[in-house]
């Protein structure tokens, strides 16, 4: 449905409709996509980007992580974790469940990562070994973004698993 009222807004709305993207978005919102594989791929890409950042730190590696983050946002918006309008109790429960599982995984990654970094720092002080630790702003941004990617993708996976198969006669009025 295109916007009516302001001629410029109408033209822009018609242009957007012509791309087909709003129609696709409406379809996804009426029936959320249950993502199975994409979050795993995005998690793998994020792990790869962190590995590159550790091995060859630099600003360009930040964009290696930004790419899966952008796709994560799209998957998040079209999956069961994001519903437009008022949520009913089932949808709210699915979102709560997704966030709980995602947060727990992000917490586990943060705790294990912090312990590893602390262990590495102790080893470095005793001149036993050297392990990577975040040093500058880019490193901390990478760590933060990595945790966000973990939380969002695990949440999408958990919510997708908790969402039942679509109904065959879903269009029944």
């Amino acid at each position, binding site marked *: 449905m295109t916007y009516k009222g302001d001629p410029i807004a109408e033209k822009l709305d018609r242009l957007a409709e012509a791309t087909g993207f709003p129609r696709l978005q409406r379809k996804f919102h009426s*029936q959320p996509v249950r993502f199975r594989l994409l979050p795993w791929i995005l998690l793998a890409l994020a792990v790869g980007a962190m590995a590159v950042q550790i091995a060859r730190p630099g600003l360009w590696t930040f964009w290696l992580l930004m790419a899966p983050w952008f796709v994560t946002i799209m998957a998040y918006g079209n999956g069961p974790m994001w519903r437009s309008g008022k949520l*009913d*109790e*089932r*949808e709210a429960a699915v979102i709560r469940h997704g966030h709980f599982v995602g947060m727990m995984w992000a917490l586990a990654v943060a705790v294990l990562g912090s312990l590893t970094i602390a262990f590495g720092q102790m080893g470095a002080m005793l001149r036993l070994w050297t392990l990577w630790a975040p040093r500058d702003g880019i490193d901390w941004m990478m760590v933060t973004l990595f945790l966000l990617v973990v939380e969002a993708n695990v949440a999408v996976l958990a919510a997708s698993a908790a969402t*039942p*198969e679509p*109904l065959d*006669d*879903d269009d*029944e*009025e």
Partner: protein
Amino acid sequence: MARHIYNRIAVFRAEAGISRKALADKVGVNPQTIGFLERGDYNPSLELALNIAAVFHVPVELLFSFRPFPPMAQTLLNHGDGE
């Protein structure tokens, strides 16, 4: 793990002649949720169960049960035997 709750919303809905969407609007949920309830994919909250029962003017235990409901033909047959 929550116990499975059986229901006969579909039977009552068919008898009342109302669509999933109409029932969903009356109880304030998404029509998909009514579909998932009917299919047994989702256990409702007490509030939702009571709201659905109120729409059909029946006690909640007539709509929801921990045990599977007997087929309608069986229920009618038993009812006939009792008379």
